[in-house]
């Protein structure tokens, strides 16, 4: 469910954690003046509702005309319904693939996909972005950034979602968002509270490619790849 600021969720429910995070992402990006594209969800809704419409029509005609008269049409309606349903399922599984946001900001197009591995409280985010054509280049390609963080980065122990931490994480990890929200990106590296020390440590291990977050590995690596603009 979409939770407002301050409302708590069950900390043990992975789906709640993921959904709350997924809901916060578009809110945050749109507040940064990202323009969201609803293409994917529109197609999904169209597919789904047309299947429902077929079912509704079948129900109506069966109810008013009876079984014998509508037998032939019902057969085709059932076949068509399950074809549409398969397409719908395929759409969600193969095309959407966990996409939570598609949009653009100042010419850069972005696609964000989130994923949570079963029984692991880690949020995996894959971002593809395509900067606008620079005058010198022939065209620009999609770049891909993958990052993860455990949910306790932006969830307190009793289940409250801390938007600021989430935004800081996003701004530091993803170049486009960092450009759009330099305040959050900058803040994260300047503060030195103990929570942020841990945050930095975790980020460091992730940047180095180790998935040691869940195992509490806190070895600091000094060679951060300088991707995010400061």
């Amino acid at each position, binding site marked *: 469910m*979409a*939770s407002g600021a301050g409302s708590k969720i069950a900390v043990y429910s992975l789906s709640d954690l993921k959904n709350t995070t997924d*809901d916060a992402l578009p809110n945050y990006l749109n507040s940064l003046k990202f323009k969201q594209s609803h293409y994917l969800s529109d197609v999904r809704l169209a597919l789904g509702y047309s299947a*429902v419409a077929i079912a509704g029509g*079948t129900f109506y005609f069966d109810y008013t005309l*009876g079984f014998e008269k509508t037998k032939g049409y019902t057969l085709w309606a059932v076949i068509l319904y399950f074809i549409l349903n398969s397409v719908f399922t395929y759409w969600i599984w193969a095309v959407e693939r966990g996409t939570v946001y598609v949009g653009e900001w100042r010419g850069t197009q972005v696609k964000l996909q989130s994923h949570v591995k079963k029984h692991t409280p880690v949020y995996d985010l894959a971002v593809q972005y395509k900067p606008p054509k620079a005058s010198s280049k022939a065209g620009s390609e999609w770049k891909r950034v993958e990052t993860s963080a455990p949910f306790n980065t932006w969830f307190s122990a009793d289940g409250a979602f801390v938007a600021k931490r989430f935004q800081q994480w996003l701004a530091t990890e993803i170049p486009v968002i960092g450009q759009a929200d330099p305040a959050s990106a900058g803040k994260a590296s300047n503060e030195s509270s103990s929570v942020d020390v841990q945050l930095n440590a975790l980020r460091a291990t992730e940047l180095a490619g180790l998935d040691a977050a869940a195992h509490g590995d806190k070895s600091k690596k000094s060679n951060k790849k300088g991707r995010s603009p400061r």
Partner: protein
Amino acid sequence: MLSAISGMQPRQLAAQVLNFALVLSTAFMLWKGLSVATDSPSPIVVVLSGSMEPAFQRGDLLFLWNRARNTQIGEVVVYNVRGKDIPIVHRVVRKFGGGIKPLRLLTKGDNNLADDTELYARGQDYLDRAADVIGSVKGYIPFVGYVTILISEHPWLKTVIFGLMGAVVVLQRE
């Protein structure tokens, strides 16, 4: 609960409602698919009376097949009394006709002393296989249909269950 709904954006709400609608639609279309496959308007029925005991008890679920129009004596058929919407599940005890002549059947419940002549419409002595019978029992699962008996005897249960289902599917995001 309402605040959770109002917090959603329209597309999100539409997606949630769609989930619920898809659950209902898929269940309905599966039922219709089974109905067309078995060629019976009601391919699964619940036993309502004890007239076929000890074979069938109240609450048992029966699976019908209506494509074998050449019903044999000894089969258990489900038929509608002409003019009424009451389906009855009884065994065929007499069979006449067939081929180009209409197949006429007389039925009787195992647990009844008399045959079904009194149950048929006025002036009707035999069932017409093509017109009255909606299927022949081919398979059976005990007990599981008892829920529908409860619902039909306490109609408010239906609203309660429906409402619960709706609330759960719309508000949960599994």
